[in-house]
């Protein structure tokens, strides 16, 4: 078994050859490159997909010529064309801001990918506050849009920027609250931990955790669609009114940055939805604790294979959601700006608040009513308990656990006795004792 195949992550691989600092640096560069690669390729595909979907929904074919029968390379051709185009800057524009704002949008959108969990252990930067960071970074994107709209020196652009600002700032709130619903249920902000919690059969996904999470998913999806200014909420670039909205004056490669950022953001919010509600990289067939756990245990290429499968599952789920977004775009008519704001502030915001309250009260209410911490007790599905309390699942968040860098972990957590091999120990291995930090009811019930 070669070291390359034995490593569970790039960092681990590099650490076998380089000093820690160098390994860390190189791993960071590699992570960024990988994410950037995905960031660059995905929009190509999505733009193509958009055209095809639009065509099919509108009962036409879409691109058919470039790159074969299905016009595979249409987007690439477009990109080349855009790169060739002159980089125009209007006379009335604020030159510096006009040039800077596409990069701002691009960077913000790109940074969001840093904390997306592709598979168990496969993440560019495993932040404890992953989701929080994600929301923060994605909210930066709007700055670029606003500055672009303002600096263009055009009323269309200014109006678009203003609309974008109003819309995004408003939708950020219900979006964050809806994202907090599964976070509250799970008890962690780390997207990686969230993915681990949802391992096992699909009933373990957060969307099925309780009714509030279930509703929260749909609310989140609507809000996320709006926050990436997709139809029917694409008021910022409403062609019929504002020519092209905030990017009216842009051309060439700067223009394409906006589009790359938009499609990348579509995947980003979909990825967050996947990680939060739809089980992340987990197949939902219960394979993780049976087959895949064995693969991981085996290590080396099996481990790599398991993670690849996870990444594929994650990307597939995200793409499905992106597809739904497109589907919605070409199906529903555009709203007016006041309708957009009304929808957010008068409906989605209260609904999300109610959901948040509900999910906070849910465990208490269940405990009070049933005396148990879950509604369904010990229902065996495909050999696995489902509806298990969080504290009894194979992964328990909040406990300093040994990550994949074993020796480093031990050094980093000198006080807590490091639970050995929890992740790789498979379904049989539980966290030895209910940790003291796990909050409240579930803990007490399980101990009693």
């Amino acid at each position, binding site marked *: 078994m070669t070291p390359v195949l034995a490593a569970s992550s790039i960092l681990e691989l590099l650490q076998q050859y380089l000093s820690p600092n160098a390994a860390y640096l190189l791993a960071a560069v590699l992570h960024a490159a990988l994410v950037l690669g995905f960031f660059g390729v995905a929009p190509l595909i999505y733009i193509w997909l958009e055209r095809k979907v639009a065509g099919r929904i509108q009962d036409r074919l879409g691109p058919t010529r470039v790159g074969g029968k299905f016009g595979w390379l249409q987007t690439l051709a477009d990109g080349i064309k855009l790169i060739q185009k002159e980089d125009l800057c209007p006379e009335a524009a604020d030159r510096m801001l006009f040039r800077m704002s596409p990069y701002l949008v691009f960077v913000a959108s790109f940074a969001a990918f840093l904390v997306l969990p592709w598979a168990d252990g496969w993440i560019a930067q495993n932040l*404890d*506050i992953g989701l*929080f960071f994600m929301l*923060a970074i994605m909210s930066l994107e709007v700055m670029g849009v*606003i*500055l672009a709209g303002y600096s263009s020196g055009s009323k269309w652009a200014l109006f678009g920027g203003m609309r974008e600002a109003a819309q995004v700032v408003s939708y950020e709130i219900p979006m964050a609250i809806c994202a907090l619903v599964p976070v509250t249920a799970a008890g962690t902000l780390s997207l990686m931990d969230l993915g681990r919690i949802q391992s096992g059969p699909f009933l373990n996904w957060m969307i099925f955790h309780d009714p509030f999470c279930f509703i929260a998913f749909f609310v989140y999806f609507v809000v996320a669609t709006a926050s990436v200014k997709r139809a029917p909420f694409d008021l910022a670039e409403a062609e019929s009114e504002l020519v092209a909205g905030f990017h009216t004056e842009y051309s060439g490669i700067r223009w394409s940055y906006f589009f790359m950022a938009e499609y990348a953001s579509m995947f980003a919010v979909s990825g967050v939805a996947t990680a939060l509600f739809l089980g992340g990289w987990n197949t939902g067939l219960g394979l993780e604790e049976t087959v895949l756990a064995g693969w991981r245990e085996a290590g080396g290429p099996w481990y790599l294979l398991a993670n690849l499968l996870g990444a594929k599952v994650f990307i597939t789920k995200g793409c499905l959601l992106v597809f739904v977004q497109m589907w919605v775009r070409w199906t529903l008519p555009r709203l007016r700006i006041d309708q957009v704001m009304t929808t957010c502030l008068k409906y989605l915001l209260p609904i999300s608040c109610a959901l948040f309250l509900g999910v906070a009260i849910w465990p208490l209410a269940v405990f009070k009513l049933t005396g148990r911490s879950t509604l369904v007790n010990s229902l065996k599905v495909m050999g696995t308990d489902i509806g298990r309390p969080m504290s009894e699942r194979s992964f328990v968040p909040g406990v300093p656990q040994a990550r994949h860098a074993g020796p480093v972990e031990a050094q*980093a957590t000198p006080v807590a006795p490091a639970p050995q091999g929890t992740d790789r120990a498979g379904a049989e291995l539980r966290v030895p004792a209910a940790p003291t930090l796990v909050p409240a009811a579930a803990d007490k019930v399980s101990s009693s």
Partner: protein
Amino acid sequence: MNWLAQQLDNLAWMAHGGAVYVFAAMAIVCALAVVFTHNVVRMAFWLILCLAATAGLFFSLNADFVGAAQLLIYVGGTLVLLIFGVMLTASGPFLQMRTKPGEMVLGGVVGLALLGLLLSSALAVRWGERSPVLASEVVGAGFNPVAEGNTTRELGLKFLGASSRDLKTGRGELSAGYLLPFEIVSVHLLVVLIGAAYLARTKRRKQPADSSGDSRSAALSA
């Protein structure tokens, strides 16, 4: 190969330490840019960069939650508000309200004096000797997860008046925590939002003078 590794290691170390300096320099430069720019929108832009750099400094200090909060609330929220304000109020001649050079000079002098004051007093303290608990001792002793930059849980416990170490050893006595201030701040925020909404609401004012002027001009044109 070894040399290469060594160079890489040095580079990595420099990169890591350099990142801090880069963020610091960026924060300083952008802050000065804010001071010396006259266009408010550009000021806002520089401010964004400055605040983002500050957030980077936060991250470098292992304050991940505060950094993210800085990004989310400051950069994402407050600044959007600011730009709103700029765009709602900036029209033509008022976009650039130049300060007199004398005022700039005076402000600069005073600012420099203040900077001297701050720096001389801050740097006069030899922190390492002054306080027995500094840097290395504190790290790991104050809150363990600092090493990893995972402060979320610690912050949450702090709000409840506890720390993870207390809970683990079981001998921690719970203090008052920050729950009450937190609640007060929440209510304060709510009040502020309502107040701001009230203040900034559209005022429907009848303007008989304007309408009469309109009618007069209309009559003239007719």
